[in-house]
């Protein structure tokens, strides 16, 4: 085959971003026979970089707080538990990738620019949304319903789950649709006790976390070997990560060209047709500006990055960014509210901690939403709801008092702990927004974002309730020394940025249609978290993938009908 410079040809589709949604878009479109250019702002990743089995003492600073240059270059990124001395270079250099916030509205924007994006380090929790979420506005009158229902989305959840491999247990709970699960991971004694106690005392459902980790061989990948440190890679590819699944499949078709270090700046438009002709990007290595052409442009760069590209794409009649005739592009930023919960000891369990070289389950338990799920559970002072993630088990007791031989013994004896942390719905409020900071550019000369977001009164009240109900559930299970947390953490800490280009049927009140196509431009799509109408309280990545698959299948149909 003759080599052809990727920049001299025109593609059917440019996909910007190679993470959870970009990988799916590239796979779906190229497997349908379309020619795809997959642009990734960062470099490629190699399994040789995986460090999940490297003992901590082999690191120079053992990831001890404050030490090491990685904290100087990544003061924001190291707020993420997964950004450590092992893998910090997977995360963006904050000095090269600035953004601004109002002084009184901090926002922690945690990002990876690499092939695979945040699927390299994601927490893997995978839950469906249901009509309680898609039609939330109809339930309580706040905001807008999604332009899709669970019936529309279910087939695409099926496709995502069957390919990705989600382990979990069906619970037949109306607040959280079941899916197609691989065998669930096991619960500890304390977790089973908690599940039974919560069901008996409160009628609430505790299930094992539904996670994108294989519990049996699946689609050519091996079952989990329970080393427990997924955020540092996985030599058996047991957790879902796009470079080794969707992107790999896309490249295998021969129809997909991957361009790394391609930092997309803006979408190029033809004013005569009001259609996009491609994108302009900066070569991350040479700093040269280049343009690549295609019939369609699909933004999967991560919610805020996709919106940044659109806001940086003003031209002709699109004076305030591309797709912004509604004035809503950038508005309605959401990130799940976190911070509330409770922790305590379960002294009735005497188990010793699992040895360091024993099996470690990189998963926990999930308490399914129980507030505002029906008239009977409607709350007087807040709308929507929250779920809890947590776990129970014996841990080494480094916090033991004293010193000497007694301290060493106490550490090894351990303590049996239980912990719950809430993920609350973050309401879509138009006063939470991103815009272009006119005075700030990144290292590639691309105008940077200004992010302005606070969690509101509803989130505060919701977390107060979450703290109280977490405590009551721990008390009921017999926990001692219960510590209750009710403060809402800084936005961004859930790493679930959503919204800013929400979907809807009405171009006056939304940015894209239900297939993620901009109302204003027929061949530009925002197929990631940007199109979310509401956040629900479930981890969003599975829904992002299902939305992308649905949108791509619709786009393939349009190609087949020569509508593109």
């Amino acid at each position, binding site marked *: 085959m003759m080599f052809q410079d990727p920049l001299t040809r025109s593609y059917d589709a440019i996909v910007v971003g190679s993470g959870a949604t970009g990988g799916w878009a590239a796979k779906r479109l190229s497997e349908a026979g379309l020619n795809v250019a997959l642009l990734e702002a960062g470099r490629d990743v190699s399994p040789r970089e995986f460090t*999940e089995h490297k003992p901590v*003492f082999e690191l120079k600073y053992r990831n001890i707080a404050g030490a090491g240059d990685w904290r100087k270059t990544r003061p924001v990124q190291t707020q993420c538990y997964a950004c450590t001395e092992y893998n910090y270079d997977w995360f963006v250099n904050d000095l090269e990738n600035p953004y601004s916030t109002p002084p009184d509205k901090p926002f922690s924007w945690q990002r990876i620019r690499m092939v695979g994006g945040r699927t390299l380090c994601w927490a893997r929790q995978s839950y469906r949304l249901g009509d309680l979420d898609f039609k939330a506005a109809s339930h309580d009158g706040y905001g807008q319903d999604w332009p899709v229902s669970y019936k529309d989305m279910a087939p695409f959840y099926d496709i995502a789950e069957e390919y990705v491999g989600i382990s979990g247990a069906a619970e037949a709970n109306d607040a959280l649709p079941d899916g197609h699960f691989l065998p669930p991971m096991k619960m500890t004694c304390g*977790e*089973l006790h908690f599940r039974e106690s919560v069901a008996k005392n409160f009628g609430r459902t505790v299930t094992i976390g539904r996670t994108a980790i294989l519990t049996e061989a699946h689609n050519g990948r091996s079952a989990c070997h*329970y080393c427990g440190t997924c955020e540092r890679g996985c030599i058996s590819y047991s957790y879902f990560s796009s470079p080794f699944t969707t992107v790999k499949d896309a490249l295998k078709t021969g129809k997909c060209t991957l361009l790394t270090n391609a930092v997309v700046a803006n979408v190029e438009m033809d004013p005569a047709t009001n259609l996009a002709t491609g994108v302009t990007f900066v070569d991350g290595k040479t700093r040269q500006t280049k343009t690549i052409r295609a019939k369609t442009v699909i933004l999967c760069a991560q919610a805020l990055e996709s919106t940044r590209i659109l806001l940086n794409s003003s031209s002709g009649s699109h004076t305030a960014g591309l797709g912004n005739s509604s004035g809503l592009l950038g508005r309605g930023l959401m990130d799940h509210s976190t911070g509330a919960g409770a922790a305590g000891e379960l002294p009735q369990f005497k188990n010793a901690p699992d*040895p360091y*070289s024993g099996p470690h389950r990189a998963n926990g338990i999930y308490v399914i939403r129980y507030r505002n799920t029906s008239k009977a559970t409607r709350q007087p002072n807040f709308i929507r709801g929250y779920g809890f993630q947590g776990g129970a088990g014996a841990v080494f007791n480094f916090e033991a*008092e004293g*010193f000497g031989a007694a301290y060493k013994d106490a550490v090894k004896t351990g303590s049996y702990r239980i912990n719950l942390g809430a993920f609350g719905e973050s309401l879509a409020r138009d006063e939470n927004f991103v815009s272009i900071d006119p005075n700030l550019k990144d290292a590639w000369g691309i105008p940077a974002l200004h992010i302005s977001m606070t969690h509101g009164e509803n989130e505060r009240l919701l977390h107060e309730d979450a703290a109280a109900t977490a405590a009551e559930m721990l008390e009921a299970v017999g926990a001692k020394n219960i510590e209750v947390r009710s403060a809402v953490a800084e936005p961004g800490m859930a790493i679930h940025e959503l919204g800013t280009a929400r979907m809807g049927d009405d171009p006056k009140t939304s940015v894209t249609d239900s297939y993620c196509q901009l109302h204003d431009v027929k061949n530009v799509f925002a197929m990631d978290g940007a199109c979310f109408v509401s956040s629900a309280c479930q981890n969003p990545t599975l829904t992002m993938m299902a939305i992308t698959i649905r949108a791509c299948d619709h786009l393939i149909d349009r190609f087949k009908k020569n509508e593109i």
Partner: protein
Amino acid sequence: MNRRELLRNSFLTIGAAAVTLPAGARIFPAGEDAWLALERADWTPVFLNPQQNETLLVLSDAMIPATDTPGAKAALVNRFLDLVLSAEPVASQNEFLESLAWFDTGATERYKAPFVKLTDEEKQDFLNLVAYPHTHPRWGSTETSFAGHEHFSMMKRWIVSAYYSSPVGLKEQGWDGWAARGTFSGCEHQPGEHKAN
């Protein structure tokens, strides 16, 4: 996946990656081990002065002594903390040194000798006085907060972090040098019996 399969996958992965290594990737060289630098016979501190290093060595081994398993001295806690402190912010360095120095101040006040010169019994007595959050009556203080305990807690945090992240400390937690873990079996009791213990 059993250990043999894991090992095979590991080799296959590394073999496949050898031809596709991306530019800019940070690869830990095979066998790279920062611990080896701490073990060098010609090791000298880069941050602490010799007296501070000696105090830390003695204090850490008194806090986490050798028992049926090795203690802080064998874990080279002082050497690792010297390295970490060299990269810490100045404020953090100063807090550490202040707390470390307090042990000499306190020992001199009570026993008329710096900490490293105390007998084993005196060290035990001294640490007993400062190890617990309440004001120990034998210290003679009636304040609700006790600087000695705060300095003890500060040093304990550093020493515990260094000890339990060392090869000795990992073995203390059941590390056997092997990475593969097997299968997480969870609660193995019969239904309804898991709260029996």
